[in-house]
């Protein structure tokens, strides 16, 4: 069964990818697995859709890529750049603000 990338995920993949790459350099499959694992499969999307985001981030010079052969596999590894680190802190701050706001609303409903 095919999966697609819902539009409401716009912006979220960028934050997730940057956060994961802030830890270490990773290739596409690793990033997807990390997202699935760490979010407990909260997001359902076609895994191929990670690559347009990676290419976009690379074009924006937030990440860089390099080819490396590992166990006979020629993989594309992505690394966070200083601009990406700065962008990550901006996105994190923004996300925290939004999440806090949503939390207040949800908390108010439950009160």
């Amino acid at each position, binding site marked *: 069964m095919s999966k697609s990338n819902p539009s409401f995920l716009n912006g979220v993949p960028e934050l997730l990818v940057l956060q994961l790459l802030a830890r270490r350099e990773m290739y596409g499959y690793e990033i997807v697995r990390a997202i699935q694992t760490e979010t407990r499969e909260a997001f359902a999307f076609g895994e191929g859709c990670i690559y347009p985001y990676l290419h976009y981030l690379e074009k924006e010079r937030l990440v860089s890529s390099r080819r490396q052969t590992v166990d006979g*596999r020629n993989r594309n590894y992505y690394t966070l750049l200083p601009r990406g680190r700065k962008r990550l802190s901006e996105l994190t701050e923004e996300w925290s603000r939004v999440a806090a706001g949503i939390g207040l609303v949800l908390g108010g409903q439950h009160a």
Partner: protein
Amino acid sequence: MRNSPVLTELEGRLQGTGFPVRRVREQVQELADHHEDLRLAALAEGLDERTAAARADAQLGAPEALAEHLAAAWRQASWCGRHPWVSFCLLPPLAFLTLWWLLSAGLTVLGFGLLLLRYGRSFTPADLLAAFARDPDSFAEFYTVVKGLTYLALALSVVGFCQVARRSGAGFRWAWAVCLICSAQGLFVQNALVAHRFTFGYGWPPNWICAIMPILLGCAWTTGQAWYQRRRYPASRLTKTGSAVRYTYPARLWPAPRWLTPTSLATLAALAGLIVYLGWSATENASREVRLRELHSQVWPAERAAVIDHLRAGQQGNTLFETTVDLQPFVNAPLQESLPPEVRVAGNTLAGLPAGRHIFAGVPFLITGRVQLFGGCLADCHQAFPTRVRHIPVARRCRNLHLLQGVALPCESTGASGAVIGRLVVHYADETETSLPLVMGEHLLNVWGPIFITGVRAERRFTTAPGTELAWVGTNPAIQLAQPENSLRLYRTTLNNPRPGNLITSVDYVSAVTEAAPFLVGLTAE
């Protein structure tokens, strides 16, 4: 070895949108790696080969969505991809104009450089236009090149922006937008090289060549791209060797090096075409030079001598039945005064025409000066000439009226052949009148022109209709300087009197106020 339907469809979709081939290969290879990881993970979970592959396909995502996301990311990576309306609708017409001016400037600099090398002195654009004005035949190739520049600039704009559309991921749709916009622009493009003026701009009637060319180029470009991708990058497939996986492409159908692309092929073809054209042009110029030398040294002198001999024969004969009319009271320009419209050219006069009573083309004329009429070519001339000279007295019955006349035009112009440029209005004693037309190309030609035939365009040849004959040829310092091979020409025009039994009291010499300015130097009644 197996095929992944997701990757195969993804590859087809990306290529179908006009995505750059190399980029397609990189994207598909990366996704093929991911697909293989998914498949291996599924196998590790204990799934069989077929199920594992199917699950990997599903996890990778729908190919149409993947293709759209990849294309969108690629478009976002370039300014043209982000702003397609500006890039492919607004910029191509501007690029065409800019390219045209750049190419023209380049050609101008090159041309003047070559002239400097050949003649050892610098020329100006005004010199070139003046030279064109004197001898347009010699500029046929130049005009072809000027027109070719328009086509070249348009073709470069179309192909260039189609390539940009492909490389930016905008796709074939925007490439066709470029073709249609350029076609609409080309429909109105006009350029012309006329005496003393070169024009380039928009106008009417439609320029169908420039309108159709972008469409044909678009068809050729689209077909060429599809053919190139199909032939050079046939359907790819996933292959596995040991632990390595690659999305490989079969061997190319021909061993083309990496530099052999449609762009490089088009460039090579253009260069080859240019070289062939330059070679052909050099050969043509050499053979024309040889022919011109032969014309100058042998053919034209012989033809000129034959004409002069014929004219001398016409200056003899029995002239008992003709009565010359004294035009002295109507002369408004002496023979020593410069001929229009080149009045500023020193020595452009009829001073060589002998004054007094002389026979020309078998008819006697009394020469006293020039009765000059107004014409459009005199608009810039400070001297005012009449459009009608009235009541030139004849006072006799006659069968024919003989006019010794010429017509002033810009020196390169032949005038519109068949156009009525003036009239001779005959007044009879019974107070009736009749109008006899003077027709360009039948009764007279430009006073400046050749008196030889070989190598001369039909409309510039000095031969005219029956009843009109070349009567006198001469020269002056101006024509010797500007067109040494040409001569001053006056014609004897014989007009039949439709009512020979009626007494003619007078005639009016009338201009039709066209570009041509006719003048009369002799009038005789027979």
